[in-house]
């Protein structure tokens, strides 16, 4: 990926994603936080496009920017006391120091490791190979995750039911 246009697109998308992620944790209005979260999810979908993961980019937009965002906005509408929405607790500075330390450790680990990079070209279209993988090699985890989704759905209904 040496094209300067692609590099420019990457930096633009990365800046947008990180800025809106910062918006999620720094804004005081919880509805703005949810909207920043949608922008951040869309940015991650663009990152997936840059990584030649076309199917995952579509799934990211459908599930995260579509379904989960709507779910979160519904929950905000049903539970908010907007006066004291996005405020921090008293662990703010320790949390900041811990997150900064974590970032240093992750970046140091990523730069110190010699990755066994491959020079093969990525697959052009990933949807059909992904489907084959999910129903052959990964069929057991696929079924388990289906059961998990049903269990979570029933659980969410039972928990939030009025009685």
């Amino acid at each position: 990926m040496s094209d300067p246009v692609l590099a420019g697109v990457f930096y633009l998308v990365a800046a947008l994603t990180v800025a809106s992620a910062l918006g999620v944790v720094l804004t005081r209005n919880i509805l703005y936080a949810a909207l920043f979260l949608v922008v951040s999810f869309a940015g991650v979908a663009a990152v997936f496009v840059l990584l030649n993961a076309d199917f995952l980019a579509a799934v990211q937009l459908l599930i995260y920017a579509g379904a989960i965002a709507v779910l979160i906005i519904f929950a905000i509408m049903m539970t908010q006391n907007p006066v004291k929405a996005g405020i921090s607790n008293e662990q703010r500075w320790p949390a900041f120091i811990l997150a900064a330390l974590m970032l240093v450790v992750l970046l140091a680990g990523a730069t110190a490791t010699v990755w066994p990079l491959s020079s093969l070209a990525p697959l052009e279209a990933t949807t059909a190979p992904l489907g084959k993988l999910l129903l052959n090699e990964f069929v057991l985890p696929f079924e388990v995750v289906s059961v998990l989704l049903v269990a979570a759905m029933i659980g969410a209904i039972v928990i939030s039911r009025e009685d």
Partner: protein
Amino acid sequence: MTIGLGHFLALGAVLFCIGLYGVLAKRNAIIILMAIELMFNAVNVTLVAFSRFITPNLLTGQVFAIFVITVAAAEAAVGLGIIICLYRHRETVDAEQFNLMKW
């Protein structure tokens, strides 16, 4: 100016740490859930980047990302259900108030 694996790993690390800060420092339970979703996204970026740069002809990293997305969706549904239930009983979503099982 080549965009390589390191750039995507750095992006994933930054997103993960922003999410970590949100989980630790916020009072509102819904914001904590949103920050957890940010951390899931960061892990997905990292998995897909490894898949693209280390095993480009296998799609194992992307299959893992699909499972992460599924579990994140289940987690969001159950988590928001619990928050709505708690709000109905306690009339707040402030995580500091949920200390019934604290010793």
